C-alpha cells in the first residue's frame, strides 16, 4: 500500500502543455478521482504516475520515495485500462497469473492467488476461457483481478467503466467500491463521468485544460464549487454576475439583476473580503418553480421573483425548465408534481440564498 505525492509535475508534448504544474497528495488507502472533460490531461497525469510517460518537470513519489527514474516494470502498480487490455492469446487464468511470473511466485502459490483474485471479482469459474469468450463487464473484472493479484502499491484506473453499457456500469461501480474497500488499496481513478466520481471517491480532483480547478470531498466539490468551470461541470448551475454590497463576519449581502438583494451566510461565501463584483453560482435543482401566488408563501429565508417559462425539457421524473427572469435566462430542474408547467406559463421562482455559493474565482 502506498501514498502518492505529485510535486509540481508538468507534461509538455512539443510546444503544447498537456499538464500544467500540478501538485497533489493522495493519502494511503484513499480513493481519488481525476475528473474532467475530454482532453483535460487526466490520462496524461495517470500515465506519468504509472511510468508510461516521463514528466517534463516535477517529482512523483510513492511512500515518500521519488520514483521518476524507476522504470514502469519495477514500480509495482496495478493498471486497468478502458479497453480492458487483456492478452487475447492467453487464458483468463494465464492473464491473471501474468504479473506473478515476474515476481518469482512459484506455480502452486500462483494458482492459489489467481483463484483468490477470481473469487474476489466473483468470476471463479472462467479460468480456462479466453478473453473473447467473456462479456465486456466480465473482461473488465478480469482486468481488475489481474491488476490487484500482484498486490500493487497503488491501483490506477483509466476510465475502466466507460466501455460498459449504462446498467452494467452502475453494477461495476458498486463492485469496484466493494473491492477497493475490501483490500483497502490506494486508488487513482480517471473519469469524465461526474456521477462515477461522486459515487466512488474520497476526494475528487476536478481538472480543466491541464490544470487543477478544485480538490475536495465529493460533497464539497458539488455544493461549494470553487470555480465557474466546476459549478458547470458538476451538475447544472447558473452563474449570475453579482455585486457584493456588504460583507461582515456572519453574512454577505449582494445584488444581482435576477433576484435583487440576497443575503448569504458567511460559509457560502468564504472568499469574499469586501464590496465588489463576484460570481454567484445557483444549482439548477435549487431553483423552485411554483405557480404564481401558490399556496405556502415563500418562507422568510426564501426569495421569490416572477418569471416566464421559455422551454421545457421533460425528463419523466423531473423537468428541466429554462425560465426568464428579467434579462436573465436561468435553468431549473424540478421534480414533477402532477404535470409540468407549460411553455409560456407565468410562474414564481423561489430560491433560498443559503443554497447559493459565491465562487472563489474573481468575477
Amino acid at each position, binding site marked *: 500500500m502506498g501514498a502518492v505525492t505529485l510535486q509540481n509535475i508538468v507534461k509538455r508534448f512539443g510546444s503544447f502543455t498537456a499538464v500544467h504544474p500540478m501538485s497533489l497528495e493522495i493519502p494511503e488507502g484513499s480513493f481519488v478521482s481525476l475528473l474532467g472533460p475530454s482532453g483535460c490531461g487526466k490520462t496524461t497525469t495517470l500515465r506519468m504516475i*504509472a511510468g508510461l510517460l516521463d514528466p517534463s518537470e516535477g517529482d512523483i513519489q510513492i511512500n515518500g520515495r521519488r520514483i521518476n527514474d524507476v522504470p514502469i*516494470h*519495477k*514500480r509495482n502498480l496495478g493498471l486497468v*485500462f478502458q*479497453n480492458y487490455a487483456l492478452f487475447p492469446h492467453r487464458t483468463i487464468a494465464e492473464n491473471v497469473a501474468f504479473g506473478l511470473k515476474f515476481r518469482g511466485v512459484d506455480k502452486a502459490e500462483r494458482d492459489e492467488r489467481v483463484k483468490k483474485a477470481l473469487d474476489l471479482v466473483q468470476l471463479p469459474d472462467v479460468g480456462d476461457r479466453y478473453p473473447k469468450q467473456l462479456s465486456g463487464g466480465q473482461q473488465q473484472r478480469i482486468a481488475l483481478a489481474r491488476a490487484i493479484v500482484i498486490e500493487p502499491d497503488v491501483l490506477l484506473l483509466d476510465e475502466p467503466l466507460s466501455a460498459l453499457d449504462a446498467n452494467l456500469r452502475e453494477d461495476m461501480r458498486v463492485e469496484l467500491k466493494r473491492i477497493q474497500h475490501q483490500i483497502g488499496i490506494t486508488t487513482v481513478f480517471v473519469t469524465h463521468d461526474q456521477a462515477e466520481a461522486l459515487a466512488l471517491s474520497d476526494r475528487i480532483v476536478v481538472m480543466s485544460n491541464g490544470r487543477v480547478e478544485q480538490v475536495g470531498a465529493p460533497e464539497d466539490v458539488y455544493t461549494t464549487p470553487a470555480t465557474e468551470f466546476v459549478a458547470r461541470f458538476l451538475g447544472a448551475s447558473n452563474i449570475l454576475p453579482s455585486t457584493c454590497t456588504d460583507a461582515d463576519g456572519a453574512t454577505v449581502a449582494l445584488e444581482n439583476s435576477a433576484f435583487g438583494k440576497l443575503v448569504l451566510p458567511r460559509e457560502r461565501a468564504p472568499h469574499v473580503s469586501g464590496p465588489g463584483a463576484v460570481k454567484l453560482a445557483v444549482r439548477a435543482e435549487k431553483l423552485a418553480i411554483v405557480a404564481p401566488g401558490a399556496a405556502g408563501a415563500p418562507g422568510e429565508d426564501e426569495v421569490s421573483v416572477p418569471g416566464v417559462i421559455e422551454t421545457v425539457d421533460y425528463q419523466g421524473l423531473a423537468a428541466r425548465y429554462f425560465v426568464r427572469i428579467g434579462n436573465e435566462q436561468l435553468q431549473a430542474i424540478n421534480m414533477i408534481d402532477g404535470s409540468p408547467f407549460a411553455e409560456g406559463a407565468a410562474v414564481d421562482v423561489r430560491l433560498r440564498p443559503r443554497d447559493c455559493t459565491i465562487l472563489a474565482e474573481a468575477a
Partner: protein
Amino acid sequence: MTVEAREARQPYLLLSPAMVAVTLLLLVPLAFIVVYSFWLRTATGADQAGFFLDNWREALSDAFYRDILLNTLKIAAITTLVCAIMGYPAAYVIARSRGNKAVLLLLLMLPFWISYIIRTMSWINILGASGAINSALMWLGITDAPIQMLYNEASVILGLVHFLLPFMILNIYVSLDGIDTTLEDAACSLGATRWRTFLEVTLPLSLPGLAAGGLLAFVLGAGTYITPIVLGGPTDAMFANLVFEAIITQLNWPLGSALSLMLLAVLGALVLLYNHFLGMGQLMKGLG
C-alpha cells in the same frame, strides 16, 4: 422478387465478373494442363492424346527431378528465413513510428513500381565482374582480378530476398499495426521488461502476420524461374526452370504439364496446411 431474394443474389452478381475471369483464365487452362499431363509426346515430336502415365512416372521416379525439387524448397526456405529475420525489425519500426508511417510505407511500395526483372538484373551492375563492388575493390587495389560473386546459390537467394522482402515486411507490419499498444503497457505494468513484453505479447500476437508473410515468400520464392536464370549458375536451376525448359525449349507440353502440376501440388499442400492452422483471412489482410 422479394427483397430478401434480391439481397441473397447480390453477392453473386457482384462477384460474377471476377468468377468468369477466374474460370476462363485460370481454371480452364489448368484443366487443359491436367489433361495434357496424361498425353504422350511421341518420337516424331507430335503429341498423342490419350491416358498415359508415362510423364508422371518419369516426373515422380527420376532422381534428377526430385533433387531439384528438394533444392528449390531449400532455397525457398532459406529465402523465407532471411526475409523474416530482416523483415521483422523493419516492420516493427514502421508499425511503431508515429509521424512518418505513410512515408515509410510508400518507400516500401516503391520497388513495386520497377519491373521485377529489372530489379533482379540490377544486381549484375552491383556484383558483376565489372560491377560497382569489384570496380571499387580493384580501384582501391584490394584485388587485381574481379571476385566472382554472381551466378551461385547465394546470389540467387540474394535476388529472391530482394524481391520478397517487401511482401514479408507488409504482412508483419499489418499484424503488428493491429496490436493494441495498451497490451504492451499492461504487460510492462505487471512487471515485464521491454524484452519480456516483446516475447510474451508482441511476438505471439504478430505470428499470424509472420506466418502469412512466410507463406507468401515461400510460395513465390519456390515458383520463381527468372531469378535463377539471371543470377544463378548452370547448377542453380530451380523447379520452375525445368518446367520452362520442358515446355519452351523442348516443346514437350505433356512432361512440362506433369512437372508443373507436381510443383503446384507441393505448394498447394503448404497453403492448405497454413489455411488449416491460421485461416486465409490473415493472408488477405496482408495483401490488401
